């Protein structure tokens, strides 16, 4: 055996490489099993980033189905409520390119809350059945109302209403939600450090 090896150095090298490969392979294989990290399934992580309006504008019945579809390779730009920020977050998570929002599925709008004009409501319960988050209270032949704090602004109750008595009221800035904006280098007195002047800004200036 030794003679064979010493006579044919090629065999020696082959043997050495194969045994090294076997040993490291075994170590790596063991480590992969032993130190396996139970990561959050990717669909779960995607679902966390979606706005959970359950509006179905993406063409899927709710946010989780869309999250699963994204995990399966669906485009990330079909969620208007999530907007550009949502696409950015998804792109960061999945390490893909940021693409503009798909206009087919609607456009990013100001957050709104549904409001039922109560004297016009006929109590048909159709909106209650449509609401994906059970944010509408009411019973048959009784006036319905929206729990504003639970409403996701998904617009799904507008279509079924037979008397068109639901309005989407855009959320307004209040003392509680107001805050100083980040200093805007491109405006006002600090305009001078609008350093990365884009051609459009140049024309404006």
């Amino acid at each position, binding site marked *: 055996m030794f003679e064979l090896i010493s006579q044919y150095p090629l065999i020696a090298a082959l043997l050495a490489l194969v045994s090294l490969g076997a040993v490291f392979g075994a170590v790596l294989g063991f480590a992969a099993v032993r130190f396996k990290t139970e990561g959050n399934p990717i669909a779960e992580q995607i679902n966390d980033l979606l706005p959970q309006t359950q509006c179905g504008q993406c063409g899927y019945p709710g946010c989780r189905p869309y999250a699963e579809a994204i995990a399966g390779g669906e485009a990330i730009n079909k969620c208007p409520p999530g907007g550009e920020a949502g696409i950015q977050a998804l792109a960061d998570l999945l390490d893909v390119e940021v693409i503009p929002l798909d206009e087919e599925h609607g456009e990013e709008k100001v957050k709104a809350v549904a409001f039922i004009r109560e004297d016009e409501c006929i109590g048909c319960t159709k909106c209650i059945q449509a609401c*994906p988050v059970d944010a509408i209270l009411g019973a048959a032949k009784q006036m319905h109302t929206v729990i504003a704090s639970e409403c996701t602004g998904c617009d799904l109750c507008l279509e079924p209403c037979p008397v*068109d008595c639901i309005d989407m009221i855009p959320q307004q800035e209040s003392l509680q939600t107001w805050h*100083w904006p980040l200093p805007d280098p491109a405006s006002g007195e600090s305009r001078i450090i609008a350093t990365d002047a884009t051609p459009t800004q140049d024309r404006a200036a």
Partner: protein
Amino acid sequence: MRKIFDFHGGIHPPENKRQSQQGGIRDAGIPPELVLPLSQHIGAPAKPTVAVGDRVLKGQMIAEANGFVSVPVHAPTSGTVSAIEDRLIAHPSGLPAPCIVIASDGLDEWTELAGISDYRQLPKADLLNRIREAGIAGMGGAGFPTAVKLSTRPGSQVATLIINGTECEPYITADDILMRERPGRIVEGVKILQHLLAPGETLIGIEDNKPEAIAALRAATAGSNIEIVVFPTKYPSGGEKQLIEILTGKQVPSGGLPLDIGVICQNVGSVAAIADAVLLGQPLISRITTVTGEAVREPGNFSVLLGTPMNYLLARAGFQPDRNRRLVMGGPMMGFTVADAGVPIVKTSNCLLAPSEAELPSPPPAQACIRCGMCEQACPASLLPQQMFWFAQAREFEKLEQHKLFDCIECGACSWACPSNIPLVQYYRASKAEILQLRREHEKSEQARLRFEARQERIERDEAEKVAKRAARKLAAEKRAQEAATGGGETDPIQAAIDRARAKKAAQQAGDAADTNPRDKLEKAVTSTRQRLETASAKLAQAEAEGSDLVAALQTGVDKTRARLEAAEQALRDFTAAAEEAPLQETPVDPAAAAIARAIAARASEAALDPAEKSRKQLAALEQRLEKTRARLAASQGAGEEQKIIDALESSVSLLEEKVSAAKQQLNNPEGV
């Protein structure tokens, strides 16, 4: 001699306190109109307890605390409530907020006050309640409800009571003048707090740039167990956390309260207000406000009624509006600009700064950050401001939190020291708010997700239940059939079924007989509808008499009820006629057969009904709805209602118009149906 500790960083801006130190405390007088915001403190806004038109007396509660972290509001003088509405308030946003407006009558008539001299007899809970009812909120600038701060958890021991007389911000002398002129009041307040909290030691912390205040308080506290601690002047030593470190050497844990390390801190102004509230029964209705800056001719300290418009107060100090471009509530380091000079003085207004342009020039454009580290040397919280600036610029929120953004107290020392004039504090404020908003949104979406999932689950469960029920019924039927087949061998199952059906029918007939006569039913409906119409008409008449805006709504209600009554009467008439026509049909007919016959007749009539006729009917209904909506739109426009309602109505009108035209088309082109 007590050991004085130092805190990291700090700056020494020009003090500019001398201007406003002259002339003692002046009275600002009673303005013709007082505007009292319902939220002058941190926490839930107070709830009004008066109505427009009410006469109120000085010191009377006009809004009550709404929750635990909330304080009431009192009338600062006697007068009439002229409005309860949104007004501009002292807030950096320049947004309006609900306020109670009082037109003063100049009589300054006090409500009945109940002071107590021997507060030691009072249970502590009552004493605390008195402080809460007096509407006292931290007067140093933050406005945290004092009673909440004083309600210690049972079992927690207060080792050190610190009275904050530091007033480290430039320009402000309100606390200084209070300590100089009313040291006795402060000491009485401190004694009340000592009784309430039983602290191990009581310290009054004062910066060494207020020798007169120190002397006055030393004289007033002689012989008591209150210690006056004097320490070197440095901004921001008046910050609660910094003061605690100076006096005790301990640091308040991040995210915790001073009480966690056995310390309670109170501003001298709040302490004096506590003395007034307990001993005299006077609620917090006025405060000492420094009016200073080069744009006022006679700067000084004023005793101001809360709710006094700032321009009224400024006029008292010789305001020169043409020299002034910004009006700051608070000091030059942490104060904020107000959007309008007419906003009212509130519980937290310790200073009104009207600088000239030369005194506090407009911020020059920011230069590049050269990472010089001057901000880091100035930061009293030992943060790395320049690093946080880069992260804030890049909106790297995770990194910001990792750099302890939320430990920033927004004292402004970094911005003050920055040689490149970068508005650092604004970057931190904006980033903090944005992070909080993201957190809130995430919480909300999480909530929505849970609700959505719960709903999905419920729907599935219902579905599964239905399926299960159906299966069970099927199973039972099969079982019965089997039983019939096996158990009663001699009985024919079909015969049994027929028997069951017969028995059922018999029972039904018996029930029908017991049931009320249909004629009675109809009559009852007519009478009840008539009754409803009567009450509605009465209401309408009353509304008309009062000129209420509900008239229109009531009118439609009455009309609807009348229509219903007519329909009910018609139905009754029809029934009677039918009954007279075919009296024989009444009893023996099998109800099941009748129902089938009715259904057949209905189908026949429907079939007989021309499709065009059907469309026409639909069109008529649509047109009616369109008419109604149009009328509402016109009414809304006439009444000048909110734009969004009008918009919504307009859109529904156009929607209906579309539907009408579609229906018309269908009518003209019936083959296409």
